[in-house]
């Protein structure tokens, strides 16, 4: 019985700080400083909209590991796969905006998926607070050595090629479809469920080429089992310095995967700032930098505002490109 009123007081305090937090959003930053001292006082959940083991999951775990040390509380990673990550994001949006519920977000969900799925499923950056950008993951077009293609020029000369993609509404599908149209390559696109089966199919020459994320094909490229043809980032990837970009080859295909850390809309600004500091401190650690190297990720540690403007720009760009080249991600 003794604890009952205490709990009530706690609840009252929580409600009060929530009110303070709301005023903080209105511009009254000074009023919320009290809650910043208390934050964080309990574990912070990081929801990942992908199954354990993939690169999104590994990145979330690496970031959470570093940030939890800085913040002094545990940061358990919760996997909630489904609908390309939309499911996890929608769930986190519904949680209290108190800084104890975070999620990782893939740019493709904002910039590419809406081109392929119904409007009801699409998610928007307006519904979240972007804390910080994390990293960039590049797409590479790889070929089976037996296909005899080494450059984009070889592709335009060849006929009856099959191109694997990693699924509908992915950067792999968009980048490849744009390349086929812009370079006038004749080929059939074959969607697979994810990167690994697509790479297997190219290794076995079931399809001659596929566009996958670099981490999924680097070991095979190094072993000479796959030939890298072109990278879809605007600048050369530092892990594949000899492979030209599509931009260099004269095509307009700026497609990469970006990831960011987000919180529900209305999370107090001082809490956001505290989180941002924790993530920035993580980025400086050797362990995290090593993690990026091992997973072939290029750091893209920009502010939340930059993420919003960059991704919004990309979404508009992709929409314009697909319209210009008459590409529909919904049909094959």
């Amino acid at each position, binding site marked *: 019985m003794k604890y009952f009123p205490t709990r009530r007081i706690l609840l009252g305090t929580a409600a009060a700080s929530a009110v303070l937090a709301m005023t903080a959003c209105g511009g009254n930053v000074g009023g919320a400083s009290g809650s910043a001292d208390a934050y964080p006082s309990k574990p912070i959940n990081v929801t990942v909209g992908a199954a*354990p083991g993939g690169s999104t999951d590994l990145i979330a775990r690496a970031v959470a590991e570093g940030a939890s040390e800085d913040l002094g509380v545990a940061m358990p990673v919760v996997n909630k796969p489904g609908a390309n990550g939309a499911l996890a994001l929608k769930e986190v949006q519904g949680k209290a905006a108190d800084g104890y519920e975070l999620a990782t977000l893939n740019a493709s969900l904002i910039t590419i998926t809406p081109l392929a799925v119904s409007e*009801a499923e699409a998610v928007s950056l307006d519904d979240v607070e972007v804390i910080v950008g994390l990293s960039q993951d590049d797409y590479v077009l790889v070929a089976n050595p037996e296909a005899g293609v080494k450059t984009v020029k070889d592709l335009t000369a060849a006929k009856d090629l099959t191109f694997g993609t990693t699924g509908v509404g992915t950067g792999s599908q968009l980048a490849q479809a744009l390349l086929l149209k812009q370079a006038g390559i004749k080929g059939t696109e074959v969607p697979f469920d994810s990167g690994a089966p697509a790479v297997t199919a190219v290794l076995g020459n079931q399809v001659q080429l596929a566009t996958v994320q670099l981490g999924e094909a680097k070991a095979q490229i190094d072993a000479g089992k796959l030939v890298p043809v072109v990278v879809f980032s605007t600048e050369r990837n530092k892990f594949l310095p000899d492979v030209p970009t599509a931009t260099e080859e004269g095509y307009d295909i700026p497609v990469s995967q970006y990831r960011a850390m987000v919180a529900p809309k209305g999370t107090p600004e001082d809490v956001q700032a505290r989180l941002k500091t924790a993530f920035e401190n993580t980025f400086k650690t050797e362990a995290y930098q090593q993690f990026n190297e091992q997973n072939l990720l290029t750091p893209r540690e920009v502010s939340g505002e930059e993420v919003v403007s960059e991704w919004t720009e990309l979404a508009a760009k992709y929409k314009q490109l697909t319209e210009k080249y008459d590409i529909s991600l919904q049909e094959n």
Partner: protein
Amino acid sequence: MDFLQPVLDGFGVVLAPTNLLYCLLGVVIGMLIGVLPGLGPAATIAILLPLTYGVEPVTAIIMLAGIFYGAQYGGTITSVLLRLPGEASSVVTVFDGYMLAKQGKAGTALGIAAIGSFVGGTVGIIGLTFLAPVVAGFALSFGPPEYAALALLGILLVATISSGSKSKALIAAAFGLLLATVGRDVFTGAERFTFGNLSMADGIDFVPVAMGLFGLGEILYNLEERHRAAKAPAKVANVWPSRADLKQSSGAIGRGSVLGFFLGILPGGGATISSMAAYALEKKRAKQPGRFGKGAVEGVAAPETANNAAATSSFIPLLTLGIPANATMALMFGALLIQGVTPGPQLVDQHPDLFWGVVNSMYIGNILLLIMSIPLVGVFVRILRVRAAILAPITALITLLGAYTINNSMFDVTLVVFFGIVGYLMKKFGFEPGPLVLAFVLGELLEANLRRSLLVLNGDLGGFFERPISASLLAIFLAVALWPALQSLLARRKAAGAVETVKTQKAKEKV
């Protein structure tokens, strides 16, 4: 001898005390999570991953691998005792395992499963040791047409697996195929039967369906017939299978090992398909196929051997090609990356100590599991002596909790309840849930790969017969499909012949 040197060095790595300890730790954790339905090896490895940061790469992978194959041992226990398959690969074990348990022979079923698992696992490791590079090529020659043909064959085998009425099995299987179409179309992005629900966008997860149909459905059915359930076997003895049982299942274990090893290499549902194929093979070969589904030891031995052999051989694509064959292997891939080792074609040359250390740790791990599971069988079997009134709610609770932990999703819990009711009704009206679940698993594989094949083959169906593997699989399909018709034709002729001889005999007697 050059080849054997790194192999022997690998044993040196495993026998280091730290590595032995982590191996033991891995298999014990694996076995425990195998017993808990829902919590699979993938989730466990994800949770325990940070624990491995501080140790040597080879030690870390030895432990994680132990969790994976240990879970295959543990998964059998709930399938046999509670009719709760934790994974797709132990669905077929339920059919005969649970019947054996009902007959008071749970110990025999678990003992045979442990021995089969040990043999299957060991054969898998020997294959991994000597054939890994050769066999990796086999996985690569499996393209979309081969998968489509294999799935087609699997769906046909589903019909032969069930023991009840053929037409009811077909109806259940058709329902399973229909369920497999739910979700976002992989080719066009169109929503199919999702009713605008995001939770269904990726389709329905297999585990809640199996848990509901088998687990909850069984509990509900037993509640109705409480008086009968109360008469659960009072005496559960014979932990060690009798010599007759061993003899009866030795063939099944041998064939299951080989089949499991080869099918396990295939990415995707390798372990599931191999357990089904092993079961169907034994049923086809049996002199009295009618015994299957009513408590045949081979029905437990074959799939359990095959799924362990498959679990081991699924390491081959990861370690030799750098391709994870399933979710658990994807985590191993991640774990290796964290340790600074990139799995791929160069792994064996660059890190021979790691490769052979991990492979050889599996020999030790399998022996540890066998030693642990035989005495533990007696302990687990006692679960059956708990009164139904106590056991039923606890099982239901574990099932629902387990369903939640897969994707941390309440939607999956609702699915379990829904399919629990479906399972109860099916059982009440004489439908087997087995064909439904298996067709559900294979339906997705068939549809996606058939459409993919048609893209690759430019819409030419003849292409299926121009590729050697898909052509052979389709030939087997035709043979299996036409066999019953042929058999009845032959039987009729024989019967007609027999009648003739009887007539002549009778005629002779008269004379």
